[in-house]
């Protein structure tokens, strides 16, 4: 009763705000009342007030650095960016045919994909609630298309269950749900829930289980046209004389449980992976390219930072051109936004206080491996009716991700043939020479798609601990380190402030890099305007 009264009062308040101040104000009021707290992004940053000719040197032209550069430049700052790579973008990166990549240790690969085919070795999907990144895509005219996280017709695979034969996600999900529903319905009807659930609610529960679990009128989950609507048919509905469908046989509860395939279902359920997800049309680096286009003459590439000093008047950064590393160069500015990954920053001479230094030293960098494989034909579509999405497996490759674009064509295609993040396999694949990684991915993948052996053409493998510009995939904060050091990492230290995914609560996500940059420059600007 009290709760109702409260809701009514809130609703009245909201419509009052809406009527008087417009829908945007109502939205912000709703956010603060906890209704729509999907994102910390509150729209384009407004850096009001005169920066009085102040200059900012930004280190790193990834999404954090370029967000800072774009917004500070627009607010009237003199901005310069130093970037280690020969291209802007950082981990926002796409590999296409003709691209060469030399990893640490000197192993060089040339991508031999056909024109138009690519892999994104770094970030590859954008959740709908990453509103800052989506807003920049809109402002920079980056076209998006759906990224398919859940394809019911892709596979879940265990080398130790069902004789190693891959199971359709649709069937595993339906059987897991159906068998649990039958069990719970049985338990309810036996009166075993009488203490916990009222008689009235038990009736509703039984109705719900029947609908949710695709049970028959006796609350059994069995081979029927009802369960077939969820798990699929042995013979699908057709036309003409032999049109009638035949149901398929559900898998027993015990087999589903022991297969452990249920553990992959969370990949479709958790907040970061709920539909709708997006990818840029043509490759993730369309975002980095669009940012860079807005920053002509501001980004200096091939610049390796060797040290960062500051005093009360400004910041001096020493660096070298990677083509002539013997000749030291310097750049100076009033302020510095440093987005260099902590894996590298922790090794540089850097004049900051002890607490920030301790924070920089507190974050290990995760291992991750992605392997792109080109095949002569899109057999996953032609033979198996898998259009986009991801198959999960307990094999060392962990995932096979199908292209979410170019559907239903008689043409070559590129799969993401492996994606390991942090498990032992990420390290093991990093330790292999690139060609061996590709060969192993083809080998393991053929247990799921036997077509691999005859259709494979060429592949490329990126192991993030071997990537020269990051020495790892992303900052892998432990809870303890975050509790002790995170705030110290994000403070402005004299004239230096850090930004990047490592300075966010969204590690390894591009949204974290952007939100971190916006927060850092907001605080920096406040300081500049005040002094």
């Amino acid at each position, binding site marked *: 009763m009290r709760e109702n009264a409260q809701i009514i009062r809130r609703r009245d308040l909201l419509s009052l705000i809406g009527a008087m101040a417009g829908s945007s104000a109502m939205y912000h009021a709703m956010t603060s009342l906890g209704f729509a707290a999907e994102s910390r992004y509150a729209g384009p940053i407004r850096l009001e007030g005169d920066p009085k000719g102040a200059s900012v040197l930004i280190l790193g032209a990834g999404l954090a650095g370029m967000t800072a550069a774009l917004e500070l430049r627009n607010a009237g700052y003199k901005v310069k960016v130093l970037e*280690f790579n020969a291209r802007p973008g950082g981990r926002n990166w796409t590999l296409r045919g003709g691209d060469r990549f030399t990893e*640490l*240790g000197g192993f060089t690969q040339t991508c031999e994909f056909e024109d138009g085919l690519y892999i994104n070795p770094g970030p590859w999907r954008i959740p709908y609630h990453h509103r800052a990144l989506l807003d920049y895509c809109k402002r920079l005219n980056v076209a998006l298309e759906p990224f398919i996280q859940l394809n019911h017709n892709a596979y879940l695979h265990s*080398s*130790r*269950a*069902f*004789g*190693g*034969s891959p199971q359709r996600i649709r069937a595993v999900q339906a059987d897991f749900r159906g068998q649990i529903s039958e069990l719970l319905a049985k338990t309810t009807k036996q009166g075993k829930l009488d203490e916990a659930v009222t008689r009235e609610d038990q009736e509703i529960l039984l109705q719900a289980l029947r609908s949710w679990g695709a049970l028959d009128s006796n609350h059994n989950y069995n081979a029927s046209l009802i369960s077939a609507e969820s798990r699929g048919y042995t013979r699908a509905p057709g036309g003409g004389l032999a049109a009638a469908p035949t149901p398929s*046989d559900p898998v027993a509860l015990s*087999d589903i449980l*022991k297969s452990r395939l249920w553990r992959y279902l969370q990949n479709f359920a958790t907040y970061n992976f709920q539909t709708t997800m997006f990818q840029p049309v043509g490759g993730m680096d369309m975002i980095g390219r669009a940012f860079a286009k807005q920053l002509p003459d501001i980004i200096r590439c091939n610049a*390796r*930072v060797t040290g960062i000093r500051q005093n009360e008047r400004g910041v001096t950064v020493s660096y070298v051109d990677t083509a002539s590393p013997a000749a030291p160069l310097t750049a100076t500015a009033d302020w510095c936004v440093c987005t*260099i990954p*902590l*894996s*590298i920053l*922790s*090794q*540089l001479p850097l004049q900051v206080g002890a607490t920030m230094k301790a924070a920089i*030293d507190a*974050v*290990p*960098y*995760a*291992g991750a491996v992605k392997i792109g494989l080109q095949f002569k034909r899109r057999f996953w579509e032609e033979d198996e009716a898998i259009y986009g999405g991801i198959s999960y497996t*307990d*094999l*060392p490759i962990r995932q096979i991700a199908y292209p979410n674009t170019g559907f239903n064509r008689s043409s070559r295609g590129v799969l993401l043939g492996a994606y390991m993040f942090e*498990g*032992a*396999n990420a*390290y*093991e694949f*990093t*330790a*292999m020479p690139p060609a*061996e990684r590709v*060969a*192993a991915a083809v*080998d*393991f993948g053929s247990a799921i798609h036997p077509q691999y052996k005859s259709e494979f053409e060429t592949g490329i493998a990126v*192991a993030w*601990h*071997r*990537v*020269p*510009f*990051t*020495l*790892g995939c992303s900052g*892998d904060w432990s809870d303890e380190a975050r509790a002790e050091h995170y705030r110290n990492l994000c403070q402005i230290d004299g004239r230096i402030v850090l930004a990047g995914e490592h300075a966010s609560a969204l590690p390894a996500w591009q949204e974290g890099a952007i939100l971190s940059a916006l927060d850092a420059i907001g605080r920096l600007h406040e300081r500049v305007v005040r002094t």
Partner: protein
Amino acid sequence: MGRQACRVLVFAACCALLQPVAFAQDTAKGRTLSFGYRFVQTSGEELFANICQGCHMPDGAGATGAGSYPPLAVNPNLESGAYPISLVLNGRRAMPPFGDRLSDEQIAAVVNYIRTHFGNDYRDRVTARDVQDARRKEDRK
């Protein structure tokens, strides 16, 4: 129906077959790969070839890009066995900790391997007991 029964039989047979096998998978190149979070390799040489060389390189020479991986080859910091034990257990800066992915025996094996290869010649072997003691010391901190 027959197909279903057959599938169940195959499943049962595979379970029986797979049960005694360690949680590992082999590649064509003769590598034994791990199944989950922890590593399955046991010898120092195998552990080096599946973990350390990813960053420190197959010849232990390290590598340099925007930052560096220090060389393990001819490295005087390896003189005391306690130092590499502590690094493998706890990591350092961007180097991840491996304490909960490797057993005491595995850590001793890989430390002994590194201290006697790549131009290092430290003959005093560390033991699993040394690793266990280092873990305890860490817990008391």
